[in-house]
């Protein structure tokens, strides 16, 4: 039986593996901790999502979590986040009011390029997946657009 085929036993039977000496990080083969895991338990801030009719939704967001993910997880339906936070679809478009612009930061060149696809984009526009929550954002207002399409 060809032991490198499936059904040939545990993975130790796969060719070359014995030669590499690959075992639990001994050779740089270790698993890299995810950023979300590293940020767990470092506190939360309150973000106010406000829609175009003025309806407000406060959401507690963990530090390091992005504003798209926090919105989608908490049922803020005006934010879609189709691409899951890859800055590749522009369906998490939001407006950051002037007072919070400095705290939220400016869009990167790539984000500006993707904002081309947002609906009713103006100078306050950001893609919420590109804004990771910091302690300074506690109490920040995020305005959601009428539509993402």
């Amino acid at each position, binding site marked *: 039986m060809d032991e490198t085929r499936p059904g040939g036993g545990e*993975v130790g039977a796969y060719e070359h593996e014995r030669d590499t000496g690959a075992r639990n990080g001994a050779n740089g083969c270790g*698993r890299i901790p995810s950023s979300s895991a590293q940020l767990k338990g470092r506190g939360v801030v309150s973000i106010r999502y406000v829609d175009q009719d003025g309806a407000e939704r406060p959401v507690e967001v963990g530090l390091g979590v992005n504003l798209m993910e926090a919105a989608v997880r908490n049922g803020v339906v005006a934010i879609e986040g189709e691409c899951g936070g890859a800055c*590749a679809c522009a369906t998490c478009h939001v407006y950051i009011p002037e007072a919070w612009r400095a705290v939220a930061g400016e869009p990167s060149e790539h984000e500006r390029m993707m904002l081309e696809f947002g609906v009713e984009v103006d100078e306050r526009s950001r893609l919420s997946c590109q804004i990771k929550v910091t302690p300074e954002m506690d109490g920040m207002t995020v305005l959601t657009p009428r539509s993402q399409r």
Partner: protein
Amino acid sequence: MADKPFIETHYSHHDPAFAQDPYGFFAGVRSKCPMGHSDQLGSFYFPTTYDGVKRVFSEFRTFTSTEGAGLPDQMVRLLPVDLDPPQHTRWRRVLNRFFTSEAAAEDRARIQTVADTLVDDFIERGRADAVNELTRPFLAMTMLPVLGVPLEDRQMIGQKLLWMVHNRLVDHEGWIKCYQEVDAYLTGLVAKRRLEPRRNDLVQCLIEEEFDGRRLSDTEGYQVILLTLFGALDSTSSAMSSSLYHLARHPADKQRLLSGETPWEGALEEFIRFSTPIQGLRRQVTQPTELEGCPLEPGVNVLALCGAGNRDPEKFPEPDLCLIDRDARDHLSFGAGAHVCIGRHFARVMLQTCLETVLRRLPDYDVEPGFEPDYTASEARALKTLPIVFTPGPRVLA
């Protein structure tokens, strides 16, 4: 030489032997190293962790789609899956409106009729092959009418497409021939539509709207349609048959869904995670990078294995159990990033409709004694058959 930051293997998603249990293989690699490499299909790397797979799907500037999403090459361009943002985004923005959750919800009644029609055809018999009499025709009967394929041609076209999904490596000549036949047929349909009254549908959009500043050629329109059909065939069908198999083997889960104790919404995501109909898609590295501790040079292929990411125990504890109460919303079965499955809202409606219809109309269905699951290889992993037995019931449609 020692100290490679990956495990060397002979894995291929086209190999029927691996397709029977890819998860045991992925778990074996993952337990030793987050990165695997295969000398098959011209050589490729594959992360086995959730984070690694998601990163490949998400970082389109490092992991490009422009060389094609299939491994090996699909031989034909499929649009817009072979594009990167922002070009891809321009296409996707035009197409998205036909695939929204609202559009899928509005189609629910028609999809229910498809389910009832198919079940009617075998319900008086007391036995059926749930794959070839229900889940596979379900997709063809749902999607082909949308494209204007007349009733008498649906089975023929559906069979050809299904064959193409699984035989790209098995029969090269046959594949080219089949492709040309499907090309001629579907391009002919589009040409015919140009002469007919306008309708608000996908084909009309492909005919007359601008994509990235210009109208599509007949060939490009066909490439979109072909992708739509490939995406709609043994993918949703696989989730349906896998879920029916699970529910037959776990009657308690049947009861929890029927009683409402477990909401469909969450259960569907777990069924979709657990079945992972599309096992993996290819990206090519564009710039030097490191993935899960492994340096990668430009030009190498990476297979983003949805199936490996979905069974990462750090993301989904007890990953090899189908637990319909778990929160599986982050699964990678629809991919992630720019190319996240455009048909995912339809897939959910079809899957729920199929399962609800079977639970309602064939409440005591079970898998035939002695059944041994056998799965297709290729990008799409699906049960080849699922023989079921049940107490015969009445037809519901005229």
